[in-house]
Protein backbone atom coordinates (compact mmCIF):
# COMPACT_ATOMS: atom_id res chain seq x y z
CA UNK A 1 0.00 0.00 0.00
CA UNK A 2 1.15 3.50 -0.56
CA UNK A 3 1.18 6.19 2.04
CA UNK A 4 1.54 6.05 5.78
CA UNK A 5 -0.97 4.47 8.12
CA UNK A 6 -4.08 6.58 8.04
CA UNK A 7 -4.95 7.77 11.49
CA UNK A 8 -6.79 5.77 14.05
CA UNK A 9 -8.72 3.55 11.68
CA UNK A 10 -7.75 0.11 10.52
CA UNK A 11 -5.38 -0.16 7.62
CA UNK A 12 -6.81 1.04 4.37
CA UNK A 13 -6.90 -1.92 2.06
CA UNK A 14 -8.39 -0.27 -0.94
CA UNK A 15 -7.02 2.42 -3.16
CA UNK A 16 -9.29 5.42 -3.13
CA UNK A 17 -10.97 6.47 -6.33
CA UNK A 18 -11.45 10.21 -6.28
CA UNK A 19 -12.09 10.28 -10.03
CA UNK A 20 -15.02 7.91 -9.81
CA UNK A 21 -17.55 10.71 -10.10
CA UNK A 22 -16.00 12.07 -13.28
CA UNK A 23 -15.81 8.65 -14.83
CA UNK A 24 -19.49 8.09 -14.05
CA UNK A 25 -20.43 11.43 -15.56
CA UNK A 26 -18.71 10.44 -18.82
CA UNK A 27 -20.45 7.06 -18.79
CA UNK A 28 -23.83 8.69 -18.23
CA UNK A 29 -23.51 10.93 -21.24
CA UNK A 30 -22.33 8.02 -23.38
CA UNK A 31 -25.24 5.87 -22.15
CA UNK A 32 -27.67 8.67 -22.98
CA UNK A 33 -26.36 8.62 -26.52
CA UNK A 34 -27.17 4.93 -26.77
CA UNK A 35 -23.87 3.35 -25.80
CA UNK A 36 -24.88 0.01 -24.26
CA UNK A 37 -21.42 -0.73 -23.03
CA UNK A 38 -21.37 2.51 -21.05
CA UNK A 39 -24.72 1.64 -19.54
CA UNK A 40 -23.37 -1.80 -18.66
CA UNK A 41 -20.38 -0.26 -16.95
CA UNK A 42 -22.65 1.95 -14.87
CA UNK A 43 -24.62 -1.14 -13.86
CA UNK A 44 -21.46 -2.91 -12.80
CA UNK A 45 -20.19 0.15 -10.96
CA UNK A 46 -23.29 1.09 -8.99
CA UNK A 47 -25.14 -2.19 -8.44
CA UNK A 48 -23.16 -2.91 -5.25
CA UNK A 49 -24.37 0.42 -3.85
CA UNK A 50 -28.00 -0.39 -4.68
CA UNK A 51 -27.61 -3.87 -3.24
CA UNK A 52 -26.68 -2.36 0.12
CA UNK A 53 -29.61 0.06 -0.09
CA UNK A 54 -32.02 -2.82 -0.66
CA UNK A 55 -30.47 -5.06 1.96
CA UNK A 56 -30.26 -2.29 4.55
CA UNK A 57 -34.00 -1.82 3.97
CA UNK A 58 -34.45 -5.37 5.25
CA UNK A 59 -35.11 -7.25 2.01
CA UNK A 60 -34.19 -10.87 1.43
CA UNK A 61 -31.53 -11.47 -1.22
CA UNK A 62 -34.16 -12.56 -3.73
CA UNK A 63 -36.21 -9.43 -3.20
CA UNK A 64 -33.09 -7.29 -3.36
CA UNK A 65 -32.26 -8.79 -6.76
CA UNK A 66 -35.74 -8.00 -8.02
CA UNK A 67 -35.49 -4.45 -6.77
CA UNK A 68 -32.18 -3.93 -8.56
CA UNK A 69 -33.53 -5.27 -11.82
CA UNK A 70 -36.56 -3.02 -11.59
CA UNK A 71 -34.50 0.04 -10.74
CA UNK A 72 -32.12 -0.41 -13.67
CA UNK A 73 -34.89 -1.04 -16.14
CA UNK A 74 -36.61 2.11 -14.96
CA UNK A 75 -33.41 4.08 -15.28
CA UNK A 76 -33.29 3.39 -18.99
CA UNK A 77 -36.60 5.21 -19.38
CA UNK A 78 -35.28 8.16 -17.37
CA UNK A 79 -31.78 8.51 -18.75
CA UNK A 80 -32.66 11.65 -20.65
CA UNK A 81 -33.35 13.51 -17.44
CA UNK A 82 -30.03 12.62 -15.87
CA UNK A 83 -26.97 14.66 -16.66
CA UNK A 84 -24.35 14.09 -14.03
CA UNK A 85 -23.05 11.61 -11.54
CA UNK A 86 -24.83 13.19 -8.57
CA UNK A 87 -28.19 13.15 -10.32
CA UNK A 88 -27.63 9.55 -11.38
CA UNK A 89 -26.65 8.35 -7.93
CA UNK A 90 -29.44 10.27 -6.30
CA UNK A 91 -32.04 8.94 -8.74
CA UNK A 92 -30.85 5.36 -8.35
CA UNK A 93 -30.71 5.41 -4.56
CA UNK A 94 -34.08 7.14 -4.24
CA UNK A 95 -35.72 4.69 -6.64
CA UNK A 96 -34.11 1.67 -5.00
CA UNK A 97 -35.23 2.80 -1.58
CA UNK A 98 -38.77 3.40 -2.80
CA UNK A 99 -38.92 0.05 -4.58
CA UNK A 100 -37.56 -1.66 -1.48
CA UNK A 101 -40.27 -0.13 0.64
CA UNK A 102 -42.89 -1.10 -1.89
CA UNK A 103 -41.73 -4.71 -1.85
CA UNK A 104 -41.64 -4.72 1.92
CA UNK A 105 -45.11 -3.25 2.11
CA UNK A 106 -46.30 -6.04 -0.14
CA UNK A 107 -45.20 -8.23 2.75
CA UNK A 108 -43.41 -10.84 0.79
CA UNK A 109 -40.85 -13.09 2.38
CA UNK A 110 -39.96 -10.55 4.95
CA UNK A 111 -36.97 -11.03 7.15
CA UNK A 112 -37.46 -11.12 10.90
CA UNK A 113 -37.97 -7.58 12.09
CA UNK A 114 -34.59 -7.04 13.64
CA UNK A 115 -32.36 -9.15 11.61
CA UNK A 116 -28.98 -9.14 13.24
CA UNK A 117 -26.83 -8.97 10.19
CA UNK A 118 -24.08 -7.51 12.27
CA UNK A 119 -23.87 -10.66 14.35
CA UNK A 120 -22.36 -12.55 11.46
CA UNK A 121 -18.96 -11.28 10.52
CA UNK A 122 -17.86 -13.93 8.10
CA UNK A 123 -14.87 -15.93 9.12
CA UNK A 124 -12.40 -16.10 6.30
CA UNK A 125 -10.63 -19.04 7.79
CA UNK A 126 -7.10 -19.43 9.02
CA UNK A 127 -4.55 -17.35 7.26
CA UNK A 128 -1.11 -15.87 7.58
CA UNK A 129 -0.02 -13.80 10.54
CA UNK A 130 -0.78 -10.66 8.53
CA UNK A 131 -4.24 -12.01 7.93
CA UNK A 132 -4.78 -12.52 11.65
CA UNK A 133 -3.82 -8.91 12.37
CA UNK A 134 -6.11 -7.73 9.63
CA UNK A 135 -8.92 -9.90 11.01
CA UNK A 136 -8.47 -8.33 14.46
CA UNK A 137 -8.77 -4.89 12.94
CA UNK A 138 -11.86 -5.86 11.04
CA UNK A 139 -13.43 -7.27 14.17
CA UNK A 140 -12.76 -4.08 16.13
CA UNK A 141 -14.36 -2.03 13.39
CA UNK A 142 -17.28 -4.43 13.07
CA UNK A 143 -17.99 -4.27 16.79
CA UNK A 144 -17.78 -0.51 16.79
CA UNK A 145 -20.28 -0.33 13.92
CA UNK A 146 -22.51 -2.65 15.91
CA UNK A 147 -22.64 -0.11 18.71
CA UNK A 148 -23.98 2.65 16.47
CA UNK A 149 -27.69 3.31 16.08
CA UNK A 150 -29.39 1.32 13.38
CA UNK A 151 -29.85 4.50 11.37
CA UNK A 152 -26.14 5.28 11.51
CA UNK A 153 -25.26 1.71 10.61
CA UNK A 154 -27.46 1.86 7.55
CA UNK A 155 -26.16 5.26 6.51
CA UNK A 156 -22.48 4.32 6.75
CA UNK A 157 -23.07 0.97 5.13
CA UNK A 158 -24.63 2.58 2.08
CA UNK A 159 -22.33 5.61 1.94
CA UNK A 160 -19.32 3.30 1.93
CA UNK A 161 -20.43 2.11 -1.52
CA UNK A 162 -21.22 5.55 -2.95
CA UNK A 163 -18.98 7.59 -5.26
CA UNK A 164 -17.09 10.00 -3.04
CA UNK A 165 -18.42 13.27 -4.44
CA UNK A 166 -21.98 11.99 -4.04
CA UNK A 167 -22.08 11.28 -0.31
CA UNK A 168 -24.34 14.22 0.42
CA UNK A 169 -26.90 13.40 -2.27
CA UNK A 170 -26.95 9.75 -1.21
CA UNK A 171 -27.53 10.72 2.41
CA UNK A 172 -30.33 13.02 1.29
CA UNK A 173 -31.82 10.26 -0.89
CA UNK A 174 -31.81 8.01 2.16
CA UNK A 175 -33.79 10.62 4.03
CA UNK A 176 -30.93 11.68 6.28
CA UNK A 177 -30.65 15.36 7.20
CA UNK A 178 -28.35 17.64 5.25
CA UNK A 179 -24.86 17.51 6.68
CA UNK A 180 -25.24 13.95 7.99
CA UNK A 181 -22.25 13.15 5.83
CA UNK A 182 -20.40 15.07 3.17
CA UNK A 183 -18.88 17.57 2.97
CA UNK A 184 -18.69 17.40 6.76
CA UNK A 185 -18.03 14.24 8.66
CA UNK A 186 -21.45 14.08 10.23
CA UNK A 187 -22.60 12.59 13.47
CA UNK A 188 -22.44 8.90 12.53
CA UNK A 189 -18.86 8.87 11.34
CA UNK A 190 -17.76 11.09 14.24
CA UNK A 191 -19.38 8.67 16.64
CA UNK A 192 -17.72 5.71 14.98
CA UNK A 193 -14.31 7.34 15.22
CA UNK A 194 -14.86 8.17 18.86
CA UNK A 195 -15.81 4.56 19.51
CA UNK A 196 -12.73 3.31 17.71
CA UNK A 197 -10.49 5.71 19.59
CA UNK A 198 -11.84 4.82 23.02
CA UNK A 199 -13.11 1.30 22.53
CA UNK A 200 -12.31 -1.42 25.05
CA UNK A 201 -10.19 -3.13 22.45
CA UNK A 202 -7.92 -0.14 22.29
CA UNK A 203 -6.20 1.08 19.20
CA UNK A 204 -5.94 -1.44 16.40
CA UNK A 205 -2.31 -0.89 15.77
Amino acid at each position, binding site marked *: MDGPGSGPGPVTVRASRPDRGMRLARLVSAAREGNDDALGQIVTELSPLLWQVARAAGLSSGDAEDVLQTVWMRLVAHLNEIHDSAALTSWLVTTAKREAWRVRA*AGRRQLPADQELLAELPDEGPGSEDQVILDDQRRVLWEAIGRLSRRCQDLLRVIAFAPRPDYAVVAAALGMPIGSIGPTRGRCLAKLRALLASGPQGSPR
Partner: protein
Amino acid sequence: MMVSDAGGRPSADEPLDDADFGLLDDIRGLFEAADPMPADLPERIRFSLALRDLEVEVARLAAEEDGPVVAARGAEQSRTITFDSESLTIMIRIDANRDGTARVDGWLAPPQRREIEMKTSADSLNVASDDQGRFAFPRVPRGTAQLVVRPAEAGPGGGGRSVVTPALIL
Protein backbone atom coordinates in the same frame (compact mmCIF):
# COMPACT_ATOMS: atom_id res chain seq x y z
CA MET B 1 -4.94 21.70 11.53
CA MET B 2 -7.61 19.67 13.18
CA VAL B 3 -6.63 17.17 15.77
CA SER B 4 -8.96 14.30 15.11
CA ASP B 5 -6.68 11.60 16.35
CA ALA B 6 -4.96 10.31 19.46
CA GLY B 7 -7.69 10.86 21.98
CA GLY B 8 -9.12 13.99 20.39
CA ARG B 9 -12.81 13.81 19.64
CA PRO B 10 -13.35 14.09 15.91
CA SER B 11 -16.09 16.60 15.43
CA ALA B 12 -19.12 16.01 13.25
CA ASP B 13 -18.72 19.48 11.77
CA GLU B 14 -15.26 19.03 10.33
CA PRO B 15 -14.75 18.21 6.69
CA LEU B 16 -14.18 14.58 5.82
CA ASP B 17 -10.51 13.70 5.98
CA ASP B 18 -8.35 10.85 4.78
CA ALA B 19 -8.98 8.83 7.91
CA ASP B 20 -12.72 9.05 7.21
CA PHE B 21 -12.26 7.90 3.64
CA GLY B 22 -10.05 5.06 4.84
CA LEU B 23 -12.67 4.07 7.37
CA LEU B 24 -15.40 4.07 4.73
CA ASP B 25 -13.23 1.91 2.48
CA ASP B 26 -12.85 -0.53 5.35
CA ILE B 27 -16.60 -0.51 6.00
CA ARG B 28 -17.18 -1.27 2.35
CA GLY B 29 -14.78 -4.21 2.63
CA LEU B 30 -16.64 -5.53 5.65
CA PHE B 31 -20.03 -5.42 4.00
CA GLU B 32 -18.69 -6.85 0.77
CA ALA B 33 -17.65 -9.84 2.86
CA ALA B 34 -20.69 -9.97 5.14
CA ASP B 35 -23.41 -9.41 2.56
CA PRO B 36 -22.00 -9.82 -0.91
CA MET B 37 -24.09 -9.00 -3.92
CA PRO B 38 -24.41 -12.14 -6.09
CA ALA B 39 -21.44 -11.88 -8.41
CA ASP B 40 -23.48 -12.56 -11.53
CA LEU B 41 -26.23 -10.03 -10.77
CA PRO B 42 -24.77 -7.15 -12.84
CA GLU B 43 -24.43 -9.53 -15.77
CA ARG B 44 -28.09 -10.58 -15.49
CA ILE B 45 -29.14 -6.96 -15.26
CA ARG B 46 -27.13 -6.14 -18.36
CA PHE B 47 -28.94 -8.99 -20.07
CA SER B 48 -32.33 -7.53 -19.25
CA LEU B 49 -31.26 -4.04 -20.32
CA ALA B 50 -30.46 -5.23 -23.81
CA LEU B 51 -34.06 -4.30 -24.72
CA ARG B 52 -33.50 -0.67 -24.05
CA ASP B 53 -34.30 0.48 -27.52
CA LEU B 54 -37.90 -0.64 -27.31
CA GLU B 55 -40.61 1.64 -26.16
CA VAL B 56 -41.62 -0.60 -23.31
CA GLU B 57 -43.48 -0.77 -20.08
CA VAL B 58 -41.54 -2.41 -17.32
CA ALA B 59 -43.51 -4.97 -15.34
CA ARG B 60 -42.67 -5.28 -11.69
CA LEU B 61 -42.59 -8.41 -9.64
CA ALA B 62 -45.81 -8.30 -7.62
CA ALA B 63 -45.86 -11.71 -5.96
CA GLU B 64 -43.96 -14.94 -5.91
CA GLU B 65 -45.08 -18.17 -4.30
CA ASP B 66 -43.68 -21.61 -4.09
CA GLY B 67 -46.35 -24.17 -4.79
CA PRO B 68 -46.69 -27.51 -3.07
CA VAL B 69 -44.36 -30.26 -4.14
CA VAL B 70 -46.10 -32.25 -6.83
CA ALA B 71 -44.76 -35.64 -5.97
CA ALA B 72 -46.80 -37.54 -8.48
CA ARG B 73 -45.10 -35.82 -11.37
CA GLY B 74 -41.71 -36.24 -9.89
CA ALA B 75 -41.35 -32.52 -10.21
CA GLU B 76 -39.64 -30.07 -7.98
CA GLN B 77 -41.72 -27.33 -6.49
CA SER B 78 -43.59 -25.22 -8.93
CA ARG B 79 -43.29 -21.47 -8.66
CA THR B 80 -45.94 -18.93 -9.42
CA ILE B 81 -44.83 -15.42 -10.21
CA THR B 82 -46.97 -12.38 -10.87
CA PHE B 83 -45.76 -9.26 -12.66
CA ASP B 84 -47.67 -6.01 -12.81
CA SER B 85 -47.30 -3.22 -15.31
CA GLU B 86 -49.51 -0.23 -15.96
CA SER B 87 -51.58 -1.98 -18.59
CA LEU B 88 -51.13 -5.65 -17.89
CA THR B 89 -50.77 -8.30 -15.23
CA ILE B 90 -48.69 -11.31 -16.21
CA MET B 91 -48.86 -14.44 -14.11
CA ILE B 92 -46.64 -17.41 -14.81
CA ARG B 93 -46.27 -20.82 -13.29
CA ILE B 94 -42.94 -22.58 -13.65
CA ASP B 95 -42.74 -26.36 -13.39
CA ALA B 96 -39.79 -28.65 -13.86
CA ASN B 97 -39.83 -31.05 -16.79
CA ARG B 98 -38.24 -34.45 -16.37
CA ASP B 99 -35.62 -33.62 -18.98
CA GLY B 100 -34.26 -30.74 -16.94
CA THR B 101 -36.00 -27.98 -18.84
CA ALA B 102 -38.79 -25.84 -17.40
CA ARG B 103 -42.41 -25.59 -18.42
CA VAL B 104 -43.88 -22.11 -18.19
CA ASP B 105 -47.64 -21.55 -18.26
CA GLY B 106 -48.84 -17.99 -18.35
CA TRP B 107 -51.93 -15.84 -18.17
CA LEU B 108 -52.43 -12.23 -19.15
CA ALA B 109 -54.97 -10.02 -17.44
CA PRO B 110 -56.99 -8.47 -18.86
CA PRO B 111 -57.21 -11.46 -21.24
CA GLN B 112 -55.96 -10.67 -24.71
CA ARG B 113 -54.09 -11.98 -27.69
CA ARG B 114 -50.47 -10.97 -27.61
CA GLU B 115 -47.20 -12.20 -28.99
CA ILE B 116 -45.06 -13.52 -26.18
CA GLU B 117 -41.33 -13.87 -26.40
CA MET B 118 -39.19 -15.73 -23.89
CA LYS B 119 -35.64 -14.48 -24.16
CA THR B 120 -33.07 -16.90 -22.81
CA SER B 121 -29.32 -16.73 -22.85
CA ALA B 122 -29.33 -19.22 -25.72
CA ASP B 123 -32.07 -17.92 -27.99
CA SER B 124 -35.63 -16.64 -28.02
CA LEU B 125 -38.85 -18.65 -27.97
CA ASN B 126 -42.04 -17.19 -29.38
CA VAL B 127 -45.65 -18.09 -28.75
CA ALA B 128 -48.96 -16.24 -28.78
CA SER B 129 -51.60 -15.95 -26.10
CA ASP B 130 -55.19 -16.98 -26.86
CA ASP B 131 -58.39 -15.01 -26.31
CA GLN B 132 -58.31 -16.00 -22.67
CA GLY B 133 -54.83 -14.56 -22.36
CA ARG B 134 -53.30 -18.01 -21.86
CA PHE B 135 -49.94 -19.03 -23.22
CA ALA B 136 -47.43 -21.81 -22.64
CA PHE B 137 -43.78 -22.53 -23.24
CA PRO B 138 -43.54 -26.31 -22.87
CA ARG B 139 -39.77 -26.52 -22.71
CA VAL B 140 -37.51 -23.64 -21.73
CA PRO B 141 -33.83 -24.16 -20.99
CA ARG B 142 -32.87 -23.49 -17.38
CA GLY B 143 -31.05 -20.26 -16.72
CA THR B 144 -31.74 -16.59 -17.16
CA ALA B 145 -34.96 -15.77 -18.94
CA GLN B 146 -37.07 -12.74 -19.60
CA LEU B 147 -40.57 -12.32 -20.98
CA VAL B 148 -41.51 -9.73 -23.57
CA VAL B 149 -45.21 -9.29 -24.28
CA ARG B 150 -45.70 -7.52 -27.59
CA PRO B 151 -48.76 -6.18 -29.36
CA ALA B 152 -50.46 -8.97 -31.31
CA GLU B 153 -50.29 -7.08 -34.57
CA ALA B 154 -48.91 -3.77 -35.56
CA GLY B 155 -52.21 -2.72 -36.99
CA PRO B 156 -54.40 0.32 -36.49
CA GLY B 157 -54.88 0.84 -32.82
CA GLY B 158 -51.47 -0.63 -32.23
CA GLY B 159 -52.57 -3.15 -29.60
CA GLY B 160 -50.69 -1.37 -26.83
CA ARG B 161 -47.06 -1.13 -25.88
CA SER B 162 -44.67 -3.95 -25.26
CA VAL B 163 -44.27 -5.04 -21.66
CA VAL B 164 -41.09 -6.60 -20.33
CA THR B 165 -40.48 -8.42 -17.08
CA PRO B 166 -37.26 -8.38 -15.11
CA ALA B 167 -34.95 -11.26 -15.92
CA LEU B 168 -35.62 -14.30 -13.79
CA ILE B 169 -33.83 -17.53 -13.15
CA LEU B 170 -35.69 -20.61 -14.30
